[in-house]
């Protein structure tokens, strides 16, 4: 019906053709319907394109790869049903990112599966679920995270706020589950340390993906007299929050993890300029090679409804390729050992998969919305522009870990 699905279909059919001879199967377990559906689809399309590029360049160790989508409706139990289905389909690698509640369930299930089915192990590549615990106390050898976790992103935001003397009151709003709670806790402790004079005037958690009208929440934010809002909201919760903020006409700046969520910028329109901030591992308007620009343009042309946002999806698959070729095998255990401590030259710098906790260390960028950009988002002329001093080197963004990794025997 729409251009979006037509383009998606084109991609699906290309992958479907190659799937006949696919040797390495990846399951993409994320919402593909419901309120968070667009969020999952934006990730899925990124993986499809990344897989296509790898296959076009001869695959991995001579084998073709296939990414297949499994709709989990952001529900942990449904995700486990889909995980079982994927494993039965012969999948050895799992991608998931939307929802730390789901990621926690998958980590637990993958641990159990690998313990109960030796020789049939699966690896979980987490591309967006950023609750810090997964690479700290709750770490697992079978889990690799390709996105900076909440404490790292919050450190970037609080470093910036530290220099903004006119911010005296901060309001925290987030989704009521482990991720939202982790964001709120990180904001509270880091602000206390870096700017003890800042008063936290509100700490609100709302249900995940259920609120349709954020007007009452925005009302509370306005009446609290906040100078800035920090939120970890993503997907529809981010878009609708911005829709309500735009309606209210308030001019409070928002510091976000996922301001780049589909539709958030267009909901605010020009009101987003210098008012919406996000911290990410990349933005399209950074200086890059021609090759990278070509990739961004190809993605946009193939999937016009989405923007090149999930840069980490490309990183994750390319790092898999590099690891598998280093190990000389496409099997999970050798790949996992090869990934540990591996460095990868990504388009915007060097990324290292820290062996201690399987947390990718990469540069972070704080950006805000501007008109003066190469690539817009949401099909309008506004896009993300790097702040002055907004680049945070991987070393500066690094956080300590409490992980005690238990490893299987090295083959």
């Amino acid at each position, binding site marked *: 019906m729409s251009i979006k699905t037509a383009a998606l279909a084109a991609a699906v059919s290309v992958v479907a053709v190659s799937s006949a001879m696919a040797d390495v199967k990846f399951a993409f377990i994320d919402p593909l319907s419901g309120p968070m559906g667009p969020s999952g689809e934006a990730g899925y399309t990124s993986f499809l394109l990344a897989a296509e590029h790898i296959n076009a360049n001869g695959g991995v160790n001579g084998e073709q790869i296939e990414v297949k989508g499994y709709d989990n409706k952001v529900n942990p139990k449904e995700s486990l049903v889909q995980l079982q289905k994927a494993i039965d389909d012969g999948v050895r690698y799992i991608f998931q990112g939307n929802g730390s509640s789901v990621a926690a369930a998958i980590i637990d299930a993958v641990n159990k599966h690998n313990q109960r089915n030796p020789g049939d192990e699966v690896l979980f590549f987490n591309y967006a679920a950023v609750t810090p615990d997964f690479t700290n106390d709750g770490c697992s050898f079978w889990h690799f995270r390709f996105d900076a976790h909440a404490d790292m992103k919050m450190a970037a935001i609080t470093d910036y706020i530290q220099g903004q003397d006119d911010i005296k009151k901060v309001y925290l709003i987030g989704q009521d589950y482990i991720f939202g709670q982790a964001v709120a806790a990180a904001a509270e402790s880091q602000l206390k340390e870096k700017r003890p004079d800042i008063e936290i005037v509100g700490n609100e958690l709302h249900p995940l993906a259920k609120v349709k*009208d954020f007007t*009452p929440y925005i009302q509370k934010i306005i009446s609290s007299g906040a100078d800035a809002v920090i939120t970890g909201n993503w997907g529809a919760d981010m878009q609708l929050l911005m829709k309500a903020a735009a309606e209210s*006409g308030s001019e409070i700046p928002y510091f976000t993890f996922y301001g780049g969520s589909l539709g958030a910028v267009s909901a605010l329109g020009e009101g987003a300029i210098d008012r919406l901030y996000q911290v990410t591992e990349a933005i399209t308007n950074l200086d890059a090679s021609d090759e990278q620009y070509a990739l961004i343009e190809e993605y946009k042309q193939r999937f016009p409804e989405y923007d090149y946002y999930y840069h980490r999806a490309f990183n994750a698959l390319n790092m898999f390729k590099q690891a598998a070729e280093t190990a000389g095998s496409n099997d999970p255990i050798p790949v996992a050992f090869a990934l540990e401590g591996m460095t990868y030259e990504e388009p915007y710098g060097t990324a290292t998969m820290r062996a201690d906790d399987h947390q990718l260390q990469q540069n972070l960028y704080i950006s805000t919305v501007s008109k003066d950009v190469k690539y817009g988002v949401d099909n309008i002329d506004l896009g993300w522009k790097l702040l002055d001093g907004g680049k945070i080197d991987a070393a500066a963004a690094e956080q300590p870990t409490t992980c005690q990794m238990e490893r299987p025997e090295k083959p």
Partner: protein
Amino acid sequence: METIVFALLNGVIYGLLLFMLSSGLTLIFSMMGVLNFAHASFYMLGAYFAFTIMGATSFWIALFLAPVLVGLVGAVVERYGLRRVHANGHVAELLFTFGLAYLIEEIVKIFYGKTAVDYKIPSLLDFPAFTIYGASFPAYRMFMLVIAIGMLIGLWFLLKKTRAGLIIQAALTHPHMVGHLGHNVPLIFMTVFGIGCALAGLAGVIAGNIFVTDPAMAVQMGPIVFVVVVVGGIGSLEGAFLASILIGLLQNFAVGISASFADIFWFTGLSPTSEIGDITVSSLAPVLPFLLLVLMLIFRPRGLMGEQEL
């Protein structure tokens, strides 16, 4: 103070919207004894039809055409579906509408996709109406208020001042008597069902763009509408009106209050870090309507203004 004013405004608008949905359901329920599970699905259809019509023409045409179309769909459902299962009793009717809700959702998914459609506020109404306490109030919400009040007056006029309204009112409480008097009761049923669905469709047209138009909107709205009907009482539009406003205000006020149980029940020594002490009033908002429903059914089964027990 500003919290109260805004909660009041939003609460009344939400309440009127609920009334638009529940008035049709109350009419249908009182007259035919059918608790129409698919009623909220007609609300969803209204939003989707409006989205399509707006894409082809304009919002203003959609505002009139979409409810009419939804009403026609409703009349067809009554004529060829409900009337057939009527012979098998109320449980069969309930189950039929339950299955219908399922079916409509799936058909919508096939036609419009599984994710939300971009149903926008008409640009003519996309401006702030006024600003109070540093926050602006969108004109579209005022427009919703006007439409809802207009519907209220129209419905009141239809029921109280026209002959058809008199017959409908009589059929609400004494359908057999109306039949004996020579009126075509099945036709009345079909008309009322159609009008009820059209009202739900109208609610969908004006609410779909301010909330979200997606296939889940029926499931989310459905149970709340039941609450309104039961709390208001059978056969009582006034009751449904009171219940709608009550629930609209209740939910909007609850969200606006950040106080936790520990703050409210401080005298009991409840710790703010304990599980119960930590619950805030705003997180109670989604629970309140159902609490009201269960309490009402136990202690006053005829609802606020109903004349007979459920």
